[in-house]
């Protein structure tokens, strides 16, 4: 955690790499194994060259016996060390992944949900998670190969240097060109191609999404051809760009081959010239060193072949690290006091006066000048159109956001003076769009109170009218609900969330739109059930559904962030205000039914 936050200002990739510091030794093993393994491959060919060149001089067998043993050892060593390198590097990658995940999670835990608003839209959060998970590739494909290549390249050059210095210069130049220049060129052209194609990709994605997602509308309104034309045009654009960028992409691999070939040729040319000058087979450069340096130059390029891919990988990782850094550097949404008040006692009383929340300086406040009192046995309903600020008020109570001005008191002391986690032990319930975890029904429920007994679970489920349904399932409480509760109906998901809130049984229960996304019949049924279940509990109910609100003690109507009116159901229906109109719009029919 300190590693991630303590190095602000450094490059994002560097911050990510620092997380691997405890794994330095393992990383070193991986690089060494890779380098020695690859070095074995180079040495295998060079030694074989030595073996043949020396043998062709028909010496005593003793002269080549070491080489005979060495080639066999090198051939085994090569395979074995490459195997170890892959194991080590994957192990490091997974260990670092665990650290990165925990560090990112700790930060996200502080930020969620208000500090993550920018990440809630679309699939930003999904992308962030895949960015975090992609760090495992960073080590395997982005870090280990360049370090390995550097060691092997240095080793091969040194070996040639000891034999024939001028050739070492050629080899070093070739390896540098293939190991640095070509990867840089390749990564740049890949970046450029991706940048050029990005708008075309976006348009294709949008066109196909529209075409298939809106297929019913296109068919019904006879617009299929229009939709298809748009998708075809987008496809043609993208294909044209891809064809155009193909030559740039081919350049890297072609250059790589050319550099390797020309280096080999250069080394050979130097060798031939030097032997030719001497004029005899035992000239300044004999057949044995010539064979050794030529075959070394031939084999050494294997070390750098993975580098263009590594450069591209590093490019991706830098972008991903940048996105991760954005999250890490997002400001805390709530102030945590240095020395918080002791945890609040039960029962709790809340009193908000002049409460105003402003998410950013440029936007109008989400809520302003709100007065609200909540306490034992009192049920208050918060109603109003979408965007009126109802959920913001719930977020204040949950300590997900702080008031920008005004006061909020919990048991007479400033709400902001408590530790946010302590506040949530007494104020809890159901956030907007409650999350159903990809686990069993029991685990989803028990989450609210891990030590709850089976009887308590059953009572909460019964209060939310889920128990009969659970009992009817073949797997009962152990039924998996799928990702986001996909195996449940909308009503069952909301009821499960309600059961969870009831099981937690906090001194103040806040339910934020527990009937959202349901059809009218289900909405009414659930509202009736939850009003029955919360009778006698201190409750703040945020809802669109006005049916049954005659049962609550106070109704607060929010409009454009302000309290438009407040009172009991009977008073508000009489008054000619927002509530009256809402009531008439949706509920006159049901009420006038005999």
């Amino acid at each position, binding site marked *: 955690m300190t590693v991630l936050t303590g190095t602000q200002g450094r490059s994002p990739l560097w911050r990510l790499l620092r997380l691997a510091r405890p794994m330095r030794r393992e990383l070193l093993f991986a690089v060494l194994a890779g380098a020695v393994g690859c070095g*074995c491959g180079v040495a295998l*060919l060079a030694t074989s*060259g030595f*073996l043949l*060149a020396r043998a062709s001089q028909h010496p005593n067998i003793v002269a080549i016996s070491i080489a*005979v043993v060495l080639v066999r050892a*090198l*051939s085994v060593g*090569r*395979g074995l060390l490459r*195997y170890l390198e*892959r*194991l080590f590097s994957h192990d490091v990658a997974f260990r670092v992944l*665990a650290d990165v995940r925990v560090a990112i*999670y700790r930060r996200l835990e502080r930020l*969620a949900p208000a500090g993550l608003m920018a990440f809630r839209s679309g699939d930003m959060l999904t992308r962030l*998670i895949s960015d975090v*998970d992609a760090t495992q590739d960073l080590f395997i494909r982005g870090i280990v190969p360049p370090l390995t290549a550097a060691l092997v390249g240095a080793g091969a050059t040194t070996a040639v240097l000891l034999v024939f210095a001028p050739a070492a210069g050629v080899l070093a130049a070739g390896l540098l060109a293939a190991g640095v220049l070509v990867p840089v060129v390749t990564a740049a052209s890949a970046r450029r191609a991706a940048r050029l194609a990005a708008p075309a990709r976006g348009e294709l994605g949008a066109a196909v999404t529209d*075409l*298939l*997602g*809106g*297929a*019913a*509308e*296109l*068919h019904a*309104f006879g*617009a*299929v051809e229009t939709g*298809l034309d748009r*998708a075809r045009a987008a496809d043609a654009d993208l294909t044209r760009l891809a064809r155009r960028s*193909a030559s740039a992409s*081919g350049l890297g*691999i*072609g250059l*790589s*081959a050319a550099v390797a*070939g020309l280096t080999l*040729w250069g080394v050979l040319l130097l060798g*031939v010239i030097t032997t*030719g000058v*001497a*004029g005899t*087979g035992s000239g300044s450069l004999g*057949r044995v060193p010539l*064979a050794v340096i030529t075959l070394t130059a031939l084999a050494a390029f294997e070390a750098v072949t993975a580098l263009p891919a590594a450069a591209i990988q590093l490019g991706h990782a830098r972008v991903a690290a940048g996105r991760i850094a954005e999250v890490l550097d997002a400001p805390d949404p709530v102030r945590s006091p240095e020395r918080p008040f002791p945890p609040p006692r039960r029962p709790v009383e809340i009193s908000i006066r002049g409460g105003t929340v402003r998410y950013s300086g440029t936007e109008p406040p989400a809520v302003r000048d709100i007065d609200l009192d909540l306490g034992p046995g009192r049920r208050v309903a918060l109603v109003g*159109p979408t965007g009126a600020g109802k959920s913001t008020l719930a977020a204040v109570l949950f300590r997900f956001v702080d008031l920008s001005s005004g006061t909020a008191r919990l048991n007479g002391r400033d709400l902001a003076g408590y530790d946010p986690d302590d506040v*949530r032990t007494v104020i809890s319930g159901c956030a907007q769009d409650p*999350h159903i*975890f*990809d686990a069993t029904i029991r685990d989803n429920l028990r989450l609210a*109170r891990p030590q709850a007994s089976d009887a308590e679970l059953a009572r909460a489920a019964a209060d939310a009218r889920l128990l009969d349904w659970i009992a009817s399932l073949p797997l009962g409480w152990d039924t998996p609900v799928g990702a986001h509760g996909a195996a449940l109906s909308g009503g069952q998901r909301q009821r499960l969330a309600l059961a969870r809130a009831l099981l*937690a049984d906090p001194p103040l229960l806040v339910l934020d739109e527990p009937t959202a996304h349901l059809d*009218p019949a289900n909405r009414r049924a659930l509202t009736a059930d939850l009003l029955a279940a919360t009778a006698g509990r201190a409750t703040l109910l945020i809802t669109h559904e*006005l049916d049954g609100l005659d049962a609550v003690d106070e109704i607060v109507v929010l409009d454009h962030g302000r309290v438009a009116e407040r009172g009991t159901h009977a008073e508000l229906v009489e008054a000619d205000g927002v509530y009256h109109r809402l009531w008439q719009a949706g509920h*006159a*029919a*049901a009420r006038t*039914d005999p």
Partner: protein
Amino acid sequence: MKPLDPRLLRYSAAARGYLAVTVVLGLAATGLILIQASLLARLLAGAATGTGLTVLAGALVTLVVVLVARAGATYGGEVAALRAAAAVKSQLRRRLVDHALRLGPSWLARNSSGGVTTLATRGLDGLDAYFARYLPQLVLACLVPVAVLIRVAFADWISAVVIGVTLPLIPVFAILVGLHTKTVTQRQWRLLARLGGHFLDVVEGLPTLKLFGRGKPQAEVIGQVTEEYRAVTMSTLRVAFLSGFVLELAAALATALVAVEVGLRLLAGHMSYQTALLVLLLTPEAYLPLRAVGAQFHASTEGAAAARDVFEILDTPAPNASLTTPASASSGRRVSLHTDTIKLSGVSLVYPGRDRQALSAVNLTIRPGDRITLAGPSGAGKSSLLALLLRFAEPAGGRIEVGGVDLTSIPVGEWRRQISWVPQQPYLFTTSVAANIALGQPAATQAAIARAAQAAGAAEFIEGLPDGYATEVGERGLRLSSGQRQQIALARAFLHDAPLLLLDEPTAHLDAVSARRLEEAIVVLTANRTVIQVTHSQNETRDISRLFTLDQGTLSQASSPCPAPASALLAVTS
């Protein structure tokens, strides 16, 4: 999995052309490898005996030409591969979306249009690696070892035997190890997906976790889960990497074997230095493409899997061409829903792959000016009945006649022009407000669009948007509220101005205020039209003349017509 799916060649002309190019380039590359080895051997052996630069100059020049040509072939191969990949992706993508549309909205609804969209865009990108990396290596893996073996056999048959014996070990071991790891790897992939999903699940659920004080303790769980994942994965990888190990070991051992065997015969004077060098230089080349194809195999699987998914969809027979393309055969008489009656007799509907009938033996007569309400729980077949009328699906049994003419003989375009449809959650396209209203009517004038918006009660909010009617609504219209999206859908229906109106619970997902606004516009829209509306509950109904209930695909008329105005709408307006 087959290395090369024959359907790829069948469905894509570009793939056929590319395969030919790859084989030609592969042959060229093979030839260049052989020539390069010969030249190197000649130069090294020549220089060894003190032959000077003047004699070897020819060989040196040829070598540089060969080396540059190899680089050129590599470049050309990559460019050809990427271009072919782009062309093949384009061909498959077009066929895929065409076919998915022909399969129709009900097929898309049942097969997750999102999945098909991902397949048509990102999924097909996996083919890049398949074409640029895997396929050329596959061709080389077939050509090079054979060519090398023949060349070595001509130079030195003993070495050829050594290579010939060890070479088959590579595929054999690869297959043996592969078979062993296959099931383990598959289990591993499932675990990986589940654990990757776990982290996302936990992060998405953070507000809920925090509410119940479970946020901070969860950090340890994430660490534990990832650590378990590491332990399990590493035990799998220890085996999975064995295949790479075996490949490398076999190739390296063979090189060492040949070097020693050739070296010893060279020592004894049974062989020339040049031949010995040639054999040594060629030996690793025989193994290289086999190793490469093994290494690229995993990179290619993603693309191959995407292609397989595409073929599966392409191989799904479209229900009937007449559903989507205007049939040329016309009954001769043009039907008009202003005057003609629709008669469903004994109609049943079964979706492919389902046992249960979505609709069974439905009899219903829809006369011009009728007001019909279909009530029933979700899944009872209400939307299926609308799908039949919209011709998104065809009856499995029974007949639908319009004015005595069989519905299937009426061109589908002509038919749908007479129907307006307002669904529960209308789809808005990534374009302007105006284009969304004028869907299917590109010729509509600005004034006509504005009139339709006015009638739908949408004009006020549209004029308040930054660019008015030209405002982009964003992906799926998400820049608008659900009430506003529904108003746009109503404006569409107004502009479409058809005699038959299908209302699929347009207000079900709206809050009371938005629903009320919409209801007012719906009253105007239903006037002077034949109306079929769908509802969950009977007290949500508008002015209806006939009430039908659907239960598990069976339609029955309610015993008595619904008691008069029980609607919110009438309570407000009367």
